[in-house]
C-alpha cells in the first residue's frame, strides 16, 4: 500500500500540494486528474522520491520513501516523469535494459532478458529496438521509457501523463498494457491522465486534484459526473451514460464562472 500522510509542498509562499492524505491499496489502476498546475506532478514526484516534501510522510508497503535506500526502493517503486527529452545516444534496447539495473546491477541474467524482451514487445518496440533514442519521434521515445519502467518490474508504478505524445493506437495500446500490469501482473499503477474518459474507462479509481488538494476520490462513475467535474475543472461538462460507462462530453462546452459560453467569451476579445 502507498500511504500518503499529510504531504505538503511549498515553493516560497505558494503551497502547491496542501496536506494531502491518500491511501492507495495494492492492486489496480488509479488515475490522477485535475487542471494544469493542480499539483498532480508534484504529488507524484514526491511519492517517487524525486522531490522532497516540506511536510508529511509517504510510505510504500511500510517503507518510508525518503529513508529507504535507493536500490531497495527501486525494486518496489518506479516513476516516470512527464518530460523525457533525453539527448543520450542509447539504443532503445539498451535503455530498456537499464530498467533492470536495480535488479541486476548491470549483469543481466536470462530472467532480466525475459523482462526486457517482454517490455519491448508490449510497447511494440521490436522493430526499433536497435535504434537510438535521439533518432526517434517523441512518441516512440515515450514508449521506450514506458518499456524501461515496465522492465523494472516493480509492484508500484507511477506514470506522469504517459499518453501525452502518443497517437490513438499507441495510446490505446499503452492503456491496455497498464491495465494488464494491474490485472495479470498484480501491480499497482498510479497514472496522471488528462482525458477523463480514458481515465474512466481504464481505471478502478479516480483521484481529482485542485489547487494542491484532493477534491474528489472515487470510482469512475462517481468522479465522472457533471457536478464533480464542474468543481474540479471549473467547467460545465455534460456527462452521458453509455454501455461503456460515463462519457464526459467535453466538446462544445461552457464555462461555469460567469456561465457564458466559451465561444462568446472569446468573442469579446476580438
Amino acid at each position, binding site marked *: 500500500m502507498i500511504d500518503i500522510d499529510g504531504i505538503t509542498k511549498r515553493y516560497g509562499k505558494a503551497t502547491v500540494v496542501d496536506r494531502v492524505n491518500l491511501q492507495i491499496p495494492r492492486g489496480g489502476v488509479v488515475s490522477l486528474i485535475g487542471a494544469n498546475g493542480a499539483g498532480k506532478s508534484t504529488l507524484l514526484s514526491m511519492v*517517487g522520491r524525486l522531490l522532497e516534501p516540506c511536510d508529511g510522510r509517504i510510505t510504500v508497503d511500510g517503507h518510508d520513501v525518503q529513508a529507504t535506500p*535507493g536500490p531497495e526502493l527501486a525494486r518496489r517503486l518506479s516513476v*516516470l*516523469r512527464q518530460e523525457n527529452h533525453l539527448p543520450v*545516444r*542509447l*539504443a532503445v534496447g539498451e535503455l530498456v535494459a537499464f530498467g533492470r539495473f536495480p535488479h541486476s546491477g548491470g549483469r543481466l541474467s536470462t530472467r532480466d532478458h525475459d523482462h526486457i524482451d517482454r517490455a519491448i514487445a508490449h510497447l511494440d518496440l521490436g522493430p526499433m529496438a536497435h535504434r537510438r533514442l535521439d533518432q526517434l519521434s517523441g512518441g516512440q521515445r515515450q514508449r521506450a521509457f514506458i518499456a524501461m519502467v515496465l522492465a*523494472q518490474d516493480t509492484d508500484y508504478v507511477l506514470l506522469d501523463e504517459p499518453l501525452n505524445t502518443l497517437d490513438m493506437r499507441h495510446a490505446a495500446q499503452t492503456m491496455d498494457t497498464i491495465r494488464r500490469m494491474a490485472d495479470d501482473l498484480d501491480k499497482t499503477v498510479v497514472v496522471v491522465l488528462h482525458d477523463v474518459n480514458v481515465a474512466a474507462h481504464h481505471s478502478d479509481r479516480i483521484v481529482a486534484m485542485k489547487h494542491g488538494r484532493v477534491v474528489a476520490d472515487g470510482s469512475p462513475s462517481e468522479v465522472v459526473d457533471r457536478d464533480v467535474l464542474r468543481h474540479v475543472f471549473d467547467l460545465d461538462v455534460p456527462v452521458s451514460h453509455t454501455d461503456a460507462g460515463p462519457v464526459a462530453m467535453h466538446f462544445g462546452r461552457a464555462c461555469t464562472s460567469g456561465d457564458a459560453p466559451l465561444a462568446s467569451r472569446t468573442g469579446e476579445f476580438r
Partner: protein
Amino acid sequence: MITVARPAPQGADRRYLAIGALVLLGAAAVSLFVGVSGISPADLLAGDAQKRAVLLESRIPRLAAIVLAGSAMGVAGLIMQGLTQNRFVAPSTAGTIESATFGVLVATLWFGSGSVFAKMTLAVLFALVGTAIFLALVERLRFSDIIVVPLVGIMFGAVVGAATMFFAFRADLLQTLSAWTTADFSGTLRGRYELLWLVGGLTVLAYRYADRFTVAGMGRDHAVNLGVDHRRTVTLGLALVAAVSAVVVVVVGAIPFLGLVAPNITTLLVGDNMRRVLPVTALSGALFLLVCDILSRTIRYPFEVPVGTVVGVLGGAVFVFLIFRSRFGAAAA
C-alpha cells in the same frame, strides 16, 4: 549485453575496438623505432646492448606513458561530458587542468620542485576544487546552453591560468611553468613516468562504474528511479576526472583537447552506453596521442616539437569541426 535484435549499432563497439587495437599496435611499433638514435628490430636481434638500453630506458617508457595518459584523458573527458550532460565539457574546458597546474605551482613554491608527492597531492586537490567551482558557477548562473557552459569553463580556466602565471612570474618560475602547461614526452624515461600507472588504475576503476555513469548521465530523476545515488555518482566521477587530469599534468604536462575530441568521436560512433563506449574511448585517446607524438618527433626531425603543441593544433581543428557539425546538425534536426 542485450539479446534483442542487434544489427549495426550493437556490435559497433567490438568492431571499432578490434580495428583500433590493430592500428594502435601498428602505431606502437612505429613509435618504438622512431627517434634520434635509429633502432631497428634487426639491431635488437643482433644483440646490440646500447640500442637495447635505449629501447628499455626511453622508448618503451615513452610508449607506456603515452598509452596510459592518452587513454586516461579520453576516458576522463567521456565521464565528464556524460555526467554534465554536455558534450563540450572536458577537463580542458572546465578549468580542471588549469587548477591542477595551479596546484603544482603552489606545491613547488611551498615544498620545492623536488617533492613529487606534494605536487601530486596539491594538483589533485586543486583540480577537485576547481572543477567544483566550475560546476557551482554553471549551476548558480543557470547557464544551460551547450556552448555557453564550456565557454564559462574556458574563461574560468583562463582566470586560474592567469593567476598561476602571475605567481610563477613573481617566483621566477615561468620556465618551469611551461613544462606543466605543455605536454612533452621527450623527458619520459624509466623511473620518471611510473606514477602514470596510477592513472591507468583509475581508468580501470572507471570501467567498473560504467553503468552507474550511464544512468547518472540520464539525469537525476532517472538515476533516482533506478536506485542510483546521483550526487554520489557525479562526485565520484568528477573526483576520478580531477585525479587523472592532475596526475597527467604532474608527470607529462597538460594535454589539451584530447578529453574533448576523443569522446565526441567515439560516442558519435558507438553511442553513450559507457560500458561499450569507454573501452573504445580509451583506445582512441591512446591512439590519438600516439599519432601526435610520432608527428611531434618527425615534423622537424631531428628536433622534437612538444606533443602538447601538436595535440593542440590537431585537436583544435577537430574541435572546430565538431562545433560546426553540432550547430548545423541541430539546425537540420
